[in-house]
């Protein structure tokens, strides 16, 4: 099976457009143990927002797949709705450029057709998509 190495991923956006599925099998995963629970989250808010609130115009995610809930001042818990995620990686780029890198892309194995020749891997500019053994189907950040 195929999987993305988060350390190599450049969030180029091709996972969203090159997968043979109409909505990509690549999804954003969230490592809660790595997350800083920041109010000012680079993966949640788009650049130069005027106000830090949950209005649609402030969201980085184009499909509204990321939601957050207040925990205690000044922390917020972030959640990904995989059914809405299209694998564009915009949130991952925002998180990794100025945050802990708790958001990362993975191929959701339950959705993947396991093509023998993954179309995304052919265009991946950084060689981040690799064949992995079935028992190592995911490269997670919050697991040893």
């Amino acid at each position, binding site marked *: 099976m195929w999987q993305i190495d988060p350390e190599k991923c450049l969030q180029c956006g091709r996972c969203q457009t090159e997968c043979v599925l109409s909505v990509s099998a690549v999804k954003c995963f969230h490592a809660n143990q790595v997350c*800083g629970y920041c109010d000012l989250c680079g993966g949640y808010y788009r650049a130069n927002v*005027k*106000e*830090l*609130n*949950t*209005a*649609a115009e402030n969201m980085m995610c184009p499909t509204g797949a990321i939601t957050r809930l207040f925990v205690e001042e000044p922390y*917020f818990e972030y959640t990904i709705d995989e059914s809405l995620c299209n694998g564009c990686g915009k949130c991952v780029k925002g998180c990794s450029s100025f945050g802990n890198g708790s958001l990362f892309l993975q191929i959701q194995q339950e959705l993947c057709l396991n093509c023998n020749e993954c179309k995304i891997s052919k265009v991946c500019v950084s060689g981040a998509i690799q064949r992995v053994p079935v028992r190592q189907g995911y490269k997670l950040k919050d697991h040893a």
Partner: protein
Amino acid sequence: MKNSRIITLVTIAVWTAVLSGWHLYDPSGGFTQFVPGADKRPPGSERKADDVMIGEFFMKYDATLSGESSESWLGFRGADRTNIVRHSVPLKLTEGEFKELWSVETGEGHAAPAVWKGRAYVLDYNEQLSSDALRCFDLKTGEELWRRWYRVPMKRNHGFSRTIPAISEDGRVVTIGPEGHVMCCNGDTGELVWTMDLKKRFSTEVPFWYAGQCPLIMGDELILAPAGTDTLMVGLDVATGGVRWATPNDCKLKMSHSSVMPMTLGSKSTLVYAGIGGVCGVSADGANKGKMLWFCNQWQPSVIAPSPLQLNSNQIFLVAGYGAGGGLLQVDQFGGVWQAKITDQYKADKGISSEQQTPILYKGNIITILPKDGGGMRERVSIYQPGNLHRAVWNSANDERFGLGPYIVIDDRLFALKEDGQLFVYEINDDSMKLLRKQNVIIDGADAWGPMAYADGMLLLRDAKTVKCFKIND
């Protein structure tokens, strides 16, 4: 006939049902609204764009300090604000090209580094998060050790970041953000020590193109020139941010992009500031510390980026860009009364001038890069003698033009960075220079305007989007 009527009634019924359904169906019924408050943030704690909480965010990275440096570069133009590095044994330059040790991408801007004990500090601006960010790097490796940031949305205007941090000997790092937010951090841990908003505290009017003033630390005192409604200059306890003394803004100066320069005029330690509206001298010691000693309103450029340059015990060279040119200020004391007057003033094409960088006084000569309105010698490195500010004794070659690039003297050599990223090294002789080498240190560089910094054989420089460190000695 009967069938026809039935068909008509059925048709009407079907269309009525379709139209009713069309009107009654709500296609947005499955939509989720994204409106403020969905994250259950407690009412009243919503953040507005101008709710700046200086230094509120912090990130420590896994990298550890590789080792302390023996030299530091504690702020704008170094610890003594001369922009000159002197070693007892002159630096032996690397044979061949200077080696790049590291390179870091930054937000667009011109804020240059300061160095303390093996750490390089840059007050960056992150456009993604609309935040000023004090970033601490390992000087030798470029690994980021920590960063502290705060949200301050603003519009791009020749980039964002501007100023160089000032660092006390015991490692307190003080920054002034583009919108006048002052932050003091522990240089080792990044811990927030204290903050101050110049606009809120002193009603400072931040100039067009944002605040360019670099803070000054003298001993345990931080000196700022907020040039606000009532307060021209303040001395703060760098450990606490408490105000020790304040100079009333009786002369109604406004904040320029220039920085406060410490000088000894006569035998008096003085803080000289060129604001919008004039230039002034404030006592830096003694019982009258903080008192304005003299003021001159004959120097009135609308924009001032370079800082005043002391030439001797009673003369100060003033310079500004955008057509202002240069001027010579004479400061004397007669019978306990200080007097300051302009004795020479001229346009940029009539003598030594500079648009952005502060010239260097080295071995009795003034080294500058002439501004773009500086006549035929524009944008070249030039040497002038203080006795004649109107005629250069040496100019660099026709193809050695540097735009608004910075320059620094290290052991009888001038390192000048062209604004497109080419580094030129000159040997400085009595009244001339000799080009030793040049190297393209920033490929496709642009707007390399931030001043350079030096420590332990490492030269730090930047263009609009990158900070780099080069090893320049063997």
